């Protein structure tokens, strides 16, 4: 085949004038077939630009041009051709350093410390970092910023986010809503094919998923609640260690829980050798299990891979929490029920042959009686159903039901009503019990107050709808669930604890719905506290003793996780209820619990102040 001369001044033959109407493609013969021998592969041998740098060319668009030229088209539109270039120019990343993602996120404004953290991860830690901010400072946001920046720069295409199952949807929503990142929740095996997948760690590490993931490659892996990787003999640790990854972010609020070696393991997972070999680490940095030595050097080595923002660093202003206890006296009928139930619980605590399940339902009864008669009623009926026909318990239970029937008014509901009227603003009322929630909805409605319910069992759509209604239509939301998925109610700053969970973390979660970054008002918290009941002791414990309502966000986490190593507070309280004979003894025991909590708190304070 004759190949035209390539020389720039090569000859050209005048081509005869074409038919005026010849279609665009009619000029096919003008482009001689490609030079022979056959064309080199798309990614031709890389060329050296510099002793360290090779250049590779992706010619696929050009090859398509050749193919279309051979077949006379079809050709793309000129306007689209230009738009395509315009899109390219708009997306072009013209320098190494700027945080481009900031201009792409008009929906929200990250806080300065979050931007700063993202910058350090990108430029100093080179995409491998432990984000160890204290709770409430927005580790998710920081990770989102880093992911977004890498996506924009084309440095990350495939990313995997591994989180506890309960946080999967929340992550997906944050990434979608705040960052416009098309992340999907892993549901089926084929979900893994998506570029950005959020999955639960427990699913991911199980076969067959495990194999799929280990066979893949990830430009970025994000692990939330990474303190679950502290033990290097666990499946979690091995799994993350084995995954092929370029960048990696580990998120945890508690990089050290028990032991210095946890920190070592976490960092070794991220960057083996950063703290030397295991022996070096122990010799150089560990004084005893919980105490480091050579702290300056350790801090320096840590500072290269870990960022820990603290609330005390300033810059992050939380509004105040103002707590009011609302003492109230039960009506004689209600008090009779309370005493009846308490009596029942004590009498039967050990009559049940130590059967834990039924003991727990006794404790539940004790707690419910502080909430509403409706809540007790349901549990009593269930207890009743479980007894045999001739059980002597049946009579006792009926007596209690009789007591319930006598109650005509709910003192707490009336008080709440009064509170809400006084507040005259958006208020969220928390209760532990569905039955109480139903009762309150009905009670408020009868008194001309619109309230919307919110509970864990609702699906996402309904939850969003309820939040919308609360925001736009209703003054009051009555919620049974506080934890788990992101309900963010910063537009509301009044919280009523109709009853209190015995687990302080759940109390904190309730308040955290409202008192969080973005809340511009001081948050007012009202604790209903029925005098002469166990509730009074619990409020005393949480409020007066450890002053939990006014602890800085996250501090409670640490105290509780230290304190609960052996047994949870909730369980201890249950134990007390079952074991004690009278109110005075109970009060003393709860007081004792408060003292040891207090001790943990001050110990943590000492330790965190170097």
């Amino acid at each position, binding site marked *: 085949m004759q190949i*035209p001369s*390539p020389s*720039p001044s*090569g000859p*050209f033959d*005048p*081509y005869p*004038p*074409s038919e*005026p109407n*010849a*279609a*665009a493609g009619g*000029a096919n013969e*003008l*482009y*001689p077939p*490609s*030079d022979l021998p056959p064309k080199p592969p798309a990614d031709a041998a890389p060329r050296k*630009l*510099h002793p*360290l740098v*090779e*250049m*590779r*060319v*992706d*010619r*696929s*668009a*050009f090859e*398509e*041009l*050749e193919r279309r030229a051979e077949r006379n088209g079809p*050709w*793309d*539109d*000129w306007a*689209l*051709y*230009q*738009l*395509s*270039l315009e899109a390219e120019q*708009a997306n*072009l*990343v013209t320098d190494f350093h700027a945080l481009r993602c900031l201009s792409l996120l*008009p*929906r929200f404004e990250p806080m300065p410390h979050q931007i700063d953290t993202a910058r350090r991860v990108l*430029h100093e830690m*080179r995409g491998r970092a432990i984000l160890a901010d204290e709770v409430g400072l927005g580790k998710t946001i920081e990770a989102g910023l880093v992911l977004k920046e890498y996506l924009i720069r*084309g*440095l990350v295409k495939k990313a995997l986010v591994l989180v506890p199952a309960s946080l999967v949807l929340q992550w997906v*929503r944050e990434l979608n809503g705040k960052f*416009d990142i098309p992340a999907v929740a892993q549901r089926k095996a084929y979900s893994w094919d998506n570029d950005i997948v959020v999955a639960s760690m427990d699913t991911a590490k199980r076969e067959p998923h495990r194999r799929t993931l280990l066979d893949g490659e990830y430009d970025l892996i994000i692990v939330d609640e990474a303190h679950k990787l502290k033990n290097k003999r666990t499946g979690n640790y091995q799994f993350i260690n084995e995954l*092929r990854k370029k960048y990696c972010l580990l998120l945890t609020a508690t990089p050290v829980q028990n032991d210095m070696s946890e920190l070592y393991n976490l960092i*070794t997972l991220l960057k083996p050798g950063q703290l*030397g*070999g295991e022996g070096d680490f122990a010799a150089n940095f560990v004084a005893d299990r919980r105490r480091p030595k050579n702290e300056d050097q350790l801090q320096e080595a840590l500072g290269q891979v870990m960022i820990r923002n603290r609330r005390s660093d300033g810059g992050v202003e939380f509004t105040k929490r103002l707590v009011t206890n609302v003492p109230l006296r039960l009506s004689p009928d209600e008090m009779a029920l309370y005493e009846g139930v308490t009596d029942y619980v004590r009498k039967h605590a050990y009559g049940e042959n130590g059967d834990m399940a039924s003991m727990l339902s006794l404790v539940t009864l004790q707690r419910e009686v502080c909430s509403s008669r409706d809540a007790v009623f349901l549990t009593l009926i269930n207890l009743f159903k479980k007894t045999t026909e001739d059980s002597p318990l049946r009579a006792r239970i009926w007596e209690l039901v009789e007591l319930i029937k006598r109650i005509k008014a709910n003192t707490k509901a009336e008080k709440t009503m009064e509170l809400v009227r006084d507040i005259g603003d958006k208020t969220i009322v928390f209760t532990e019990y569905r039955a109480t929630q139903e009762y309150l909805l009905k009670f408020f409605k009868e008194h001309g107050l619109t309230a919307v319910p919110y509970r864990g069992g609702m699906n996402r759509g309904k939850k969003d709808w309820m939040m919308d209604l609360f*925001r736009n239509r209703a003054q009051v939301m009555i919620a049974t669930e506080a934890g788990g998925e992101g309900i963010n109610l910063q537009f509301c700053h009044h919280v009523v604890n109709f009853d209190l969970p015995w687990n302080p973390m759940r109390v904190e979660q309730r308040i955290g719905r409202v008192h969080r970054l973005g809340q511009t008002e001081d948050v007012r918290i009202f604790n209903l506290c029925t005098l002469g009941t166990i509730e009074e002791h619990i409020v005393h414990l949480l409020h007066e003793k450890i002053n939990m309502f006014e602890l800085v966000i996250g501090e409670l986490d640490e105290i509780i996780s230290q304190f609960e190593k052996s047994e949870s507070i909730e369980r201890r309280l249950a134990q007390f209820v079952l074991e004690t004979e009278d109110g005075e003894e109970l009060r003393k025991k709860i007081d004792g619990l408060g003292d040891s909590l207090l001790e943990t708190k001050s110990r943590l304070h000492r330790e965190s102040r170097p």
Partner: protein
Amino acid sequence: MNAKQIHKFVVSYLESKECHLIEKSPSSVTVKLSPDADRALSGRPYYWSFVDRTGTPPETMTYRWSFEQPDASGPTNASPVSYVMTESGRVIQEDVYFGSRRLLQLFDVVQQAGRCATLFEEPPRGRLDPLRSEPYTAWLGANLRVGFECDMKKEELYCWGISLATGVIDEKFMDKLRYRKMTPRLPSNVHLLKNGLSLRRGMNQLETHLERKLKSADFGWAVEAEARRQDELERIRLYYEPMLETMTHPDQREQRETLAARFRQRQSEIDWQYRPRVSVTVVNCGIFHLPGID
């Protein structure tokens, strides 16, 4: 891209796809998509395969796209999409801002739909002698994106063209075309001169030219990245090698293998993360027939 540029971009796309613009204001457009645009944008593959199989006349979607920057103080979890019912049907409302999904999708769509072109410059009307034929020569125009990459990345864009008649390279080729009127049809009274270069040779010369240009660029970033890479490699060597050395007992062979494999994996990850490289991508390219010979 600011709101105005986005507005212009979106309208240009819609017009090129012959969509029906119902309303157009400085801050928004309401548009009933053409079937073509609907296929590309509405994300309804099942609907369209139904239309294709049954021959039903398609019902395309109507959008109202607002170009104002969304309010940062607004609810961040609320969905950016909503719709209103009007007499003519459902209108889906969306914010289209720089970074929004819709705009990213549009970028994607135009990059797919504006990849390869063949065009002719329209000769000015009336000035030419109707009996004379104007000679045109062909250019290969290519827009090249260059990525300088290690653990960080930056990009440059080159919009070059090479005359297939003479081999002359124009580094401002797209600028040259910007104000010319281009048409996909061969205009009358025009004849095309024979090419001296094949397309492939033209492309090769563009690449060689680019290579020469890039060689003279600053490679400080690559030297630094390489230093980081060596650093990291050294760090893991100090971690793994002593461990491997102690595993000499025959019983530890398997364990040693595993550890050695992990060591190699870490090395390749570090390479992946840090090794400096330059990648060139042809964004789009086309054959442009222009009057005269350069």
